[in-house]
């Protein structure tokens, strides 16, 4: 009976961690501009961090062939010819961690030309850590079978 209760408790805790809205400290939105150089097959400054609500301007400069920049989750993109600068502006209204990637075939490793955009906290990363910890505590505290610690 008791173990059922604890199981229920753990499942509830898991659900809270998975679905509760993330606490956010309100930060006044800013306008931020990033210059990102794209060359085969990497972006330089490949990790950018902004706060939720910020207006983001990404100036994409290509140093060799035509490259693009597509932001996962936001599903928006730009392309820049060599030597040109193109700007992508958007409001970072979805929190979380997103990949951005080249969307113009630019050579062999093109599918892996990837950068990261973090908007506020990495929501799913923290949620999944929370879930893992709950799962592990559940396991270590309430093993389904007796865990033998001593060797006979």
């Amino acid at each position, binding site marked *: 009976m008791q173990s059922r209760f604890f199981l229920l408790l753990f499942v509830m805790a898991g659900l809270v961690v998975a679905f509760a809205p993330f606490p956010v400290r309100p930060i006044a939105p800013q306008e931020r501009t990033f210059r990102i150089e794209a060359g085969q097959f990497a972006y330089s400054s490949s990790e950018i961090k902004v706060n939720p609500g910020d207006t983001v301007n990404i100036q994409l400069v290509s140093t060799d062939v035509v490259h693009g920049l597509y932001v996962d989750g936001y599903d928006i993109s730009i392309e820049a010819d060599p030597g040109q600068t193109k700007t992508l502006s958007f409001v970072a209204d979805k929190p979380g961690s997103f990949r951005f990637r080249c969307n113009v*075939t630019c050579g062999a490793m093109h599918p892996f030309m990837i950068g990261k955009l973090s908007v506020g906290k990495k929501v*799913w990363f923290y949620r999944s850590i929370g879930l893992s910890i709950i*799962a592990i505590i559940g396991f270590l505290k309430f093993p389904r079978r007796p865990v033998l610690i001593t060797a006979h």
Partner: protein
Amino acid sequence: MELTRLPFLKSALKSRYSQLAVFIVMLVGYIFVILAGLIGTPVGSHNFSIVFVWIAWWAILILVAVPFFGRGWCAVCPIPLPGEWLQRGAVLNPPDKKPRWLNLRWPKFLRNIWLQNISFLLLALFSSVLLTTPNITGIVLAAMLFAAIGLSMIFERRAFCRYLCPVGGFIGLYSQTAPIELRIKDKQVCVVCDGKPCYNGASTVGLDVQRLNPPLSANSNTGYGCPWDVFPGGLTKNTYCGLCMECIRTCPHDNIAINLRPFSADLAKPSTRLDEAFKAFIMLGSAMIYAGVLLGPWGAFKDAAYNVGTSAWFIYATIFLAIIFAILPGFFWLMISLTSRPFAKHPFGAPIGRGVGVRKFASLTTALIPLGLMFWVAFSLSFVLTNATYILASLSDPLGLGWNLFGTANAVWQPMLTSILAPAQTLALVGGLIWSARTAQKAANEVKVSSVPVVIYCFITTLVMLGLLL
């Protein structure tokens, strides 16, 4: 639940013609993929070979076939077919009594999966080139076909599948987690079975089915012995049964069944083999390395991985191998030996790890099997969903020559389902952690040690993977 009770399914599995039809389609497809790789456009993302092998096939294999059907892919895989046909000298019929070729036994010291571990690592170290260059993909696929033919001429049965195939190794390892199995129905029937035709082949044994009483399954005297060199009567795990269905046809006592079963049933009895233990580390490690190198934001790693032969690549290869052969297993060994030391027989003066022999080490790595599978699922979800739209385009224009067969050649590249990717990966990784913790408890019970260090190991590696992917 026995699936072979379903008459429709059973006759479909027993029929050589339905299997042959699938084989022919697969073989034609395989040869087309090789040709596309060799003569099609060098642009990977527009070449049928890259798109179909590394996006479509890979997605089906790791997200569906392996988790749900175990060695299901091997049941339809075209690679060993030409060799097998030549070996038997027939497409449908069993071999003659006298072997046509050398028919050697596979050497004893290679009767393990170390060669498969090596062949997988070879491909893994060159994977950035392999994944992106149609030529190389074509050459590697052709080489596998010819290696399988060559080995069929020299050795008996399917030596390539059993001992060399880079894919077969991990499919076998992870097939233990699948909810499907091929097993005998009644052990007693096997014990008294004359000549064991399922292993030796009906014609070789000289079994005359017509004269048996009662007259048994009609086509079993045309059957041949297990191509995978497995004795079906002794099967306890999925790893080495290729689901070729031959024993269903051969067994004169209708004693073979395909069963639906709980997930990962095979893992309840942990393997104690080091080659299989290292396969688990190899797969776990490569999933983590790929997540970091291919999907991470670090350009230098990608350069190093792609520029094979440069000094950066050698460093990359060294780190790759060090992670797989030293860091991951070393850390694992350290964790289990540190915690099991006080309970070993000689607590005083015993060197660290006394209590952890090969048997315990290998048994405990069982927990890494579901963990690794789910790492691969999480990694592949991202890779496959982002690039799935290439499949449409390349169906219409497989060689990248500007064709437009189905009007989808200009389908725009667009990552799919980007908003559910992170939750799906979380689900896969946390689910994998729970699954592996349960497996760890069972394995630890078998060898009578604590499961805690293994669970913590799985937890830490999961955190690393979460950090890399999310």
